[in-house]
């Protein structure tokens, strides 16, 4: 479903859903962002792949949450003193909250980078700045391409028995050889790319580009919904319904009808595009059982 959307729609939708909690200061919204972001992961990858990412995110979370109290010494509940200044519970919780937010937004952006393939980026930004879009798309293709090349090169070397015996020095030497080879190859490769680009008419003034994506009525619906959500939640946030005060003591905002409604709206809107995927998966599961 998301694959078939127009890149502009994908871009607006993902930005709305991830950036609204990022501009708020409320642990509940950040937690919702994290949960819906991880649900979104399930639409394109499996549990095994997600579990691989978990240790990295835990480390990321810990580092960010410890960063704040070591550099900001406000707060009434003192845990201990660092170089004569306070390490307070409030600063620690504020750090944990911002870590939650960054992690949640990070999860959403992983999904975004999956759905916004390089051709879609080119299509979206090509109209604004063709050169920048070309460079971006080149880079987005080149990085995985290069890592693949290095992997295969390493396998080659290992198979030929030239990778060393496993000791540290030998490994470093072999990796240096691989890097040198890779550098030469990438220079050659860039020349080939430049040649093929001129052959296809890059830089010619009068030309048209072929676009595979089409702007459907569903796109308009999603974009409109995104704007409505952004306006509504932005208004609620601006009114201070979600503002948590951390210093000098933590004061959580009181839950009102409006804040509960906006939380519900956020959950529904951020999960609405995954619905199709899960329904399909559900029916597919039953079909497999019956047959």
């Amino acid at each position, binding site marked *: 479903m998301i694959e078939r959307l127009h890149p502009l729609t994908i871009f607006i939708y993902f930005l709305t859903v991830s950036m609204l909690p990022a501009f708020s200061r409320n642990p509940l919204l950040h937690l919702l962002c994290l949960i819906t972001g991880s649900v979104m992961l399930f639409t394109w990858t499996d549990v095994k792949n997600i579990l691989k990412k978990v240790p990295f995110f835990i480390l990321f979370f810990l580092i960010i949450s410890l960063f704040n109290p070591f550099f900001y010494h*406000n707060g009434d509940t*003192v845990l*201990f*003193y*660092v*170089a*004569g200044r306070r390490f307070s519970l409030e600063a620690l919780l504020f750090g944990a909250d911002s870590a939650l937010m960054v992690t949640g937004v990070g999860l959403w952006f992983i999904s975004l980078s999956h759905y916004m393939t390089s051709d879609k980026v080119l299509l979206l930004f090509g109209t604004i700045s063709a050169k920048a879009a070309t460079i971006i798309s080149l880079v987005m293709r080149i990085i995985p391409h290069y890592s693949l090349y290095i992997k295969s090169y390493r396998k080659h070397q290992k198979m030929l028995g030239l990778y060393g*015996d496993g*000791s*540290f020095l030998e490994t470093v030497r072999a990796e240096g050889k691989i890097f040198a080879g890779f550098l030469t190859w990438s220079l050659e490769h860039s020349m080939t790319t430049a040649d093929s680009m001129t052959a296809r008419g890059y830089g010619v003034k009068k030309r048209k580009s072929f676009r595979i994506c089409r702007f459907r009525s569903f796109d308009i619906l999603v974009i409109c919904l995104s704007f409505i959500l952004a306006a509504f939640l932005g208004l609620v946030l601006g009114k201070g319904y979600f503002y948590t005060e951390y210093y000098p003591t933590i004061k959580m905002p009181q839950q009102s009808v409006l804040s509960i409604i906006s939380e519900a709206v956020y959950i529904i809107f951020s999960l609405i595009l995954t619905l199709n995927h899960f329904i399909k998966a559900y029916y597919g599961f039953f079909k497999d059982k019956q047959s």
Partner: protein
Amino acid sequence: MLKSERMIVSKGRKLFSRAICAGLVWFCLFTAIFSLFNISSSASEGDEILEDIYESYRWKMALEGKDTLQSLIDNSFCESPLNGTNQNYILSIIQNPTISADFSKYSASLEAALYEGVTSEEGIFPTSLQKSLATYYIVSGNTNIRPEVLEKALYKTIGEKGIMSYVYGLYMMDVCGFDEASFTREDIIKELLNLQCKDGGFTLAGDEGDTDVTAMTLQVLAPAFLKQSDYYKTAFESEDGAALYKDLTSCIDKAIGFLSSIQGEGGDFASFGTYCSESTSQVILALKALNIPILSDERFKTEGADLYKGLLIYKNDDDGFVHSSATPSNDMATSQAVLALTAIYQDSSQEGYDGKIIPAEDFRIQKKAPLPLRIIIPLLVSVLFIGLGVFRFIKRKKAIHLISALVASLLFAGIFSALDIRSRSSFENEKSRVILSSEADTGIDILFSINADTIDQGYVYPETSLKVSEGSTVFDVLSEVCRLEKIQLDYEKNSVYGLAYIKGINSVYEYEYGDLSGWMYRVNGEMPNIGVGYYKLKSGDKVEILYSKNIGRDLE
């Protein structure tokens, strides 16, 4: 090179790298273990004495079956407040700068016991009354003593029971500052001088001097000899007074000579022919009262022993002190030994003292000495890292995992120790080196205040006159005030240049009230053009720390 040849070469290399790794691991483990032992065993002399004092308190607490020192004071000591042994403990706790205790309950029960003792038919032993009254005065600092007690103590005790009633009578009058009694202080001193034996000592009965009595007499004569109170300064000015002071000086010289001559080989003293701890303790107290350096004075040193070592002979295995060798621990002996140890501690350099004060509620029988955070956390993380490294080393057989784990744990330990993490109690209770007590001899007087009036928060810290050490900067005073008063403070400091910048005080930060808002300071009504970390204070300076919304324009 063929593959088989490479294998042979690599085997040698692998062994070599593994040997290096194993060596590194063992080296780190051994250094860690030895450094731990070193930490626990390296203690200065002051710490040793302090530990002896604490162990004696713990012995007494175990004897009475009390958990904390405060409960010992509130229950056991309050049951028999007139007991001289208990009073010794109380006096030692008061004199100990490392323990803070609450004596309100004890002083109340002591007052009640004094009144009861005076009014009841059984009566109260004269010396006991004198000593208890002095103790009451020291504990409570209260001069409003009931007239019945006062009358009995002043007019019916001195000289009633031999030499000891003179001794304690003079002690009481010195401590409480009584001028009128059945004897004046000069009269008592005269009486005491007359009682001196020919060998220079004092005794209860007989012609030969006794150590205990001599030492105790010296203790009470010391204030007069050193002219510690104004009373003596005026009393010894007159012609009679000067003659008396001359007699007193010669008497004390003779008494010290007597004590010095009878010191035993182990540094201890004997009373009635028996070497015992109480005599040693009393001699220590006498030296302390006379301001003679206890451990370094040549007259009280024997070969390879001093008074401290002489006293420690009598320390029992159960941490109490014995009367004389090969007897069980004795309450009286321990109480006097604690007093003597406290005197030695006060006399010593106190180099190891880190300014920590233990509240009596937290002083327990079980020695609770947790490793500080700064050792536990790096140790745990290092164990974690090295464990992971060893695990991966076993699995993958690559030395790089071990080396990286070691490097990571060392890096972490380095960063962690550089952060200087300290627990809340140790940080907040530390004795200040910048802000001195008002009675301190050195230091300069300043007026100091923190004011956030421009944002309607009033005084964060009201204007107070402080005594600060010489050469301290505005920043030193501000950070110490905030630490002691538990006011939030955030700053950036470059320890190399002494540069300091105040970001926030009391949770009010810069830029909170506009782009030009922040904390400023004013000395004697003028805003200096240098940083708080540079401005050195002079005597009589008036320092104001102020919050400004408009870089100081709104403060005039």
